């Protein structure tokens, strides 16, 4: 039983890292990305590769994952600097679709649809961590560090600059802010930290394949941020917990027809997204809507 709960804790923590990092660019910089799963995936593949070919120490796997994702994120920053709003959503969508194709085809690195098998457990200072209860310590600590980092950033001059750009790009520029640079950095930070989640995910599940890094995954993370509350501290965490618990919760209701559970779950979260947008666009923990 504990293992089951810790398993959920791990998955929630991993997805919460994704939600928190997506919220960083969505909520503060106003960059609405539908390509977050790309960095999650790249982080996972990179850390799996390092763990299998170099060493499974998280001191190696996580930084490698972060660097790879940071480098790729420059590709996303490119359109982010030029366009806004619906155009950027479309561009990120394009990147997501391209990435899925590459994840499926670059078989020497990703194993294609077949995925990467038997990824060694995370190695923390020589100790192998794979039991759900032990891994929960690792994943929760990682989440706390990521949150602390993002919180510190948001309340620093960098965070103020981001929010300033969010509110008025031209005004921010006329107060000396290098808008493209700040946006690029925010995308890079977000992607690099999302890769931490990828690294944890790979070593925890010991198996990864492209199906975990598709558009659906990006949408799921986006839904977590939105349902929880965009631009809030607790929102992404609440959203991640809620959406990750949903399948388990529904499956406890024995009277529901087994074959419809998956569909019901999706209907609930789809309906949730729509109703929240109509009645409470700020999300569950959000403030009132911005004008």
């Amino acid at each position, binding site marked *: 039983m504990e293992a089951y709960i810790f398993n959920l804790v791990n998955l929630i923590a991993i997805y919460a890292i994704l939600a928190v990092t997506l919220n960083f660019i969505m909520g503060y910089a106003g960059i609405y990305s539908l390509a977050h799963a790309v960095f999650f995936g790249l982080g996972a593949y990179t850390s799996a590769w390092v763990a299998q070919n170099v060493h499974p120490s998280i001191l190696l796997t996580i930084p490698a994952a972060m660097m790879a994702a940071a480098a790729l994120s420059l590709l996303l920053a490119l359109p982010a600097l030029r366009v806004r709003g619906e155009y950027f959503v*479309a561009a990120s969508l*394009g990147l997501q679709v391209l990435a899925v194709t590459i994840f499926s085809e670059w078989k020497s690195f990703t194993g294609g649809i077949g995925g990467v098998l038997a990824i060694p457990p995370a190695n923390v200072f020589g100790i192998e961590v794979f039991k759900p209860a032990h891994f929960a310590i690792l994943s929760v600590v990682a989440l706390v560090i990521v949150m602390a980092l993002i919180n510190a950033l948001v309340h620093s001059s960098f965070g103020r600059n981001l929010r300033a750009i969010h509110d008025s790009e031209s005004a921010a520029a006329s107060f000396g802010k290098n808008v493209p640079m700040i946006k690029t950095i925010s995308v890079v930070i977000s992607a690099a930290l999302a890769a931490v989640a990828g690294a944890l995910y790979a070593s925890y599940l010991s198996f990864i394949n492209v199906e975990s890094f598709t558009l659906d995954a990006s949408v799921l993370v*986006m839904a977590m941020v939105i349902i929880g509350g965009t631009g809030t501290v607790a929102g992404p965490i609440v959203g991640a917990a809620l959406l990750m618990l949903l399948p388990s919760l529904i499956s406890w209701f024995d009277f529901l027809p087994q074959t419809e559970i998956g569909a019901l779950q999706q209907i609930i979260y789809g309906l949730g997204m729509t109703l929240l947008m109509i009645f409470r*666009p700020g999300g569950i923990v959000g403030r009132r809507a911005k004008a």
Partner: protein
Amino acid sequence: MLAIQLAITGLQTGALYALTAVGFSLIFGSTRIFHFAHGATFVIAAYFFYGVFGAGLGLLPSIAAAGLGAVAFGVLLDRLVYAPIQRHEGSFFTVFVASFGVGIVVQNLIGMVFGRGFVTVNTPLSRSVEMIPGVYVSPLAWIAILCTAIFLGALQFFLRRTHTGMALRALADNPELVRTFGLNPRMIAATAFAVGSVLVVPAAIITSATTGLNPAIGHHVMLISLAATIVGGIGSVSGTMLAGLLLGLAESLALLVVDSQWTEAVTFAILFAFIIIRPAGLLGRATAH
């Protein structure tokens, strides 16, 4: 010969892409609503057709059911979901998320009712005949191209020659303008949704006989519509049409060079390139900001 065959195939695909994409483009251009559930409209039209046709009620009632289903869905969605959101906030992203949610709900409801597998409407019309040696064209391809021409022609007439159509175009440029002309923007939005939803009906019906349907197909339809709208230039109906055709052709002709798993990537590489290099699109006036 292969290239000619692929071009014809691409034309058929592109014609259907153009129809669906123009529907999305019209709605997006005139109301600025990021109607991601446009794919769901497609699914509803297709399954209504499939259901009624499968029940043996004949072709015309099936087409009517598909049309009614699509229009009712589009208009009701505008009334019940988009209008309330726009009343209190209206950020494009809020609308997008709500629309996305609706798409998920529709996909799963359809799956519960009709099953999640692929279904196909069987018709002898999908069987190709050899036109010239080595080039096969199915009657459905002609029907697809003809339907596209008729519907897009009718749309152009509607947009250029009727009062409502012109108001629709005006709405794209300036909502205030419409108000001063004494027209109700919400009424015009409803028209945009009705017209935009009708446009997917022929594509949905033809698709049900060619490549078949499943509840998740709306996703692909939506992605293509979005890509065509942006490549064509937001607000430009003719641009979207052209882009839909081009994307269909590119997807098909790409097979000459790459394996078929890259075709979707080709579409989105084109989209990505347009956004970076020419965000205004093929025929667009609007700028990216």
